[in-house]
């Protein structure tokens, strides 16, 4: 094997590795959801599949979508979305199908979570919202 062949093989190996380390652009949907035990007419309900997932784990029976943002995030970049008057998120597209989501309230970061997010699965940040209701920020990845 001559030197040229070895060089080409090395270049291919390095470039392949580089490509593998790159993250593809992704589309993430972020929803702000209000979970409550009281039915509220005129409000937009979350998709049935998501309601089923949430209602299986949480006690509330009704889940209303207060806001929804779609974020197209290029490799190694961060996009932010304001979901309510005081709450916003920043989503970073990381390598190995991972995303990092930071939750901000009144401009202050509360928590950052990094995980791989498969299409069809959900990342949920949640907490109580007053008496007998809860807030949910649900992130899902489009195919």
């Amino acid at each position, binding site marked *: 094997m001559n030197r040229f062949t070895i060089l080409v093989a090395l270049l291919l190996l390095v470039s392949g590795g580089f490509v593998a380390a790159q993250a593809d652009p992704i589309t993430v949907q972020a929803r702000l959801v209000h979970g409550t035990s009281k039915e509220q007419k005129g409000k937009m309900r979350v998709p049935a599949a998501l309601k089923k*997932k949430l209602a*299986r784990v949480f006690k509330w029976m009704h889940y209303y979508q207060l806001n929804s943002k779609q974020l197209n995030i290029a490799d190694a970049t961060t996009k932010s979305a304001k979901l309510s008057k005081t709450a916003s998120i920043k989503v970073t597209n990381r390598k190995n199908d991972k995303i990092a989501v930071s939750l901000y309230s009144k401009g202050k*970061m*509360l928590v*950052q*979570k990094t995980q791989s997010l498969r299409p069809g699965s959900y990342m949920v940040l*949640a*907490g109580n*919202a007053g008496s007998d209701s809860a*807030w949910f920020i649900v992130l899902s990845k489009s195919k």
Partner: protein
Amino acid sequence: MNENETELKVQALVDGELTGREAEDLHERLESDDGLRELHERLTAMRGLMTGAELPRTLPESGDFHWSQISKAIEREERQAKHMARPASGANWLLRWVLPLAGIACLVLVLSLQQTTMPDLDILLGSDHEIELSEDEIELMTFNTGDDAMSVVWLDYSIDLQQDSLQRWLD
């Protein structure tokens, strides 16, 4: 002070129930008031006559009553002695062992039934979540659903759900 009260005071003085300033005041009044002084003298004389004249009175107690009390006391002592000496009967054994054991068995049964009827949330509590917290030590809990299709970070924090009107208009 009306007359009746004054007379009662004089009676109290005779009985030795008035002391100090009150007794001195009354003594002064007795010197100036003939009527009161006469009353005082009469009451004092009456008291003197009564002193030592009262016969001691005791409740009549018949001989039958006395002996019935003694026999009741003897019977009570005999009953207590029999109770102490008697070995545990079948009923006592039942009370001592079977009932507590039955109680414990019932408790175990109730607890095991509660465990089996608890809702199956199908969640996996995990500690392998990559989480970075802010400086404000917010309490949180993380878990995944059993099918791993949903990961949850539950924060002990309430965010304002009110929508930004300008943002809504822009959307």
